[in-house]
């Protein structure tokens, strides 16, 4: 079933906490979160407030996803070279 905006909003209301970290704090912690995820697989357990923010905040979540992709490629020594990226950017 396709989740409607109302469905997504009700889930966000359900998951709302009395206190939530701001986008700035999330940005501060997200690199640690990503590296924990890659090294231990348990970032959400160690930094639950970051996981909670990422579930609520679309823009921070998108940035986290790109950061994770890039960090994984770096860890696997599979970073794309600039020329490849520039060619893709021109498409």
């Amino acid at each position, binding site marked *: 079933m396709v989740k409607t905006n109302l469905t997504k909003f009700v889930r966000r209301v359900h998951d709302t906490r009395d206190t939530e970290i701001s986008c700035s704090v999330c940005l501060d912690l997200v690199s640690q979160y990503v590296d924990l995820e890659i090294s231990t697989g348990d970032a959400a357990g160690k930094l639950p407030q970051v996981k909670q923010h990422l579930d*609520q905040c679309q823009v921070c979540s998108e940035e986290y996803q*790109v950061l994770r992709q890039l960090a994984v490629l770096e860890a696997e020594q599979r970073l794309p070279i600039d020329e490849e990226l520039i060619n893709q950017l021109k498409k």
Partner: protein
Amino acid sequence: MPGTRSNQEWLDALSNQGIQQEIALEELRRLLLRAALFTLVTHLADLHEMPEEERLALAEECAQEAMMTVLVRLGDFRGDSKFTTWAYKFGINIALSRARRWRWKQVSLDDLADDDGTLNWFQRDERLQTADSEQPVRQREVVEVIREVLRTQLTARQRQTLKLIAFDNVPMDVVVQRLDSNRNAVYKLLHDARLKIKQQLVRRGYDLAEVMDLFQ
């Protein structure tokens, strides 16, 4: 090659003077350009009307801005992640914000402004229908509570911001720019709105897990 320096080696090289610093700065510049290029490539849909030479210029601008941010914030680096991961996030943050704003620059948010106060936007496109005959009734009850909170307990600015981000899918960065605000303030505004709705549902005796099940 990123990852060949330890965190401490990055900090030492960037903090020192001379040729070692110059080499480290050039390495950092390349690293941030890669982050910007990678980010824009993963979000090409945001740039589909941008000429290709402008795309490359945008990546370079983002890398330059990220470089300044990294150098200003170098003292904040605590070593609880790899230095490269820490640096990448600034390049990604800047590049994604710029890409989102580009995509939405032609769209007037005034056209998406709250209407006549009927809050019709709140329920549009929703299909509150199911085989269970009681479920639509209970869904409508919950929707009415939410609608009432929106109408009576949120400010016009809160209502408008919530509409744009949660129901019109306008990226927060775009709303932040148009409101001349910042992400933290807009996030807090949304959080306050969600919390008021949640508290009102609880106060009226709703089990939140059941409420969520109603809309799955």
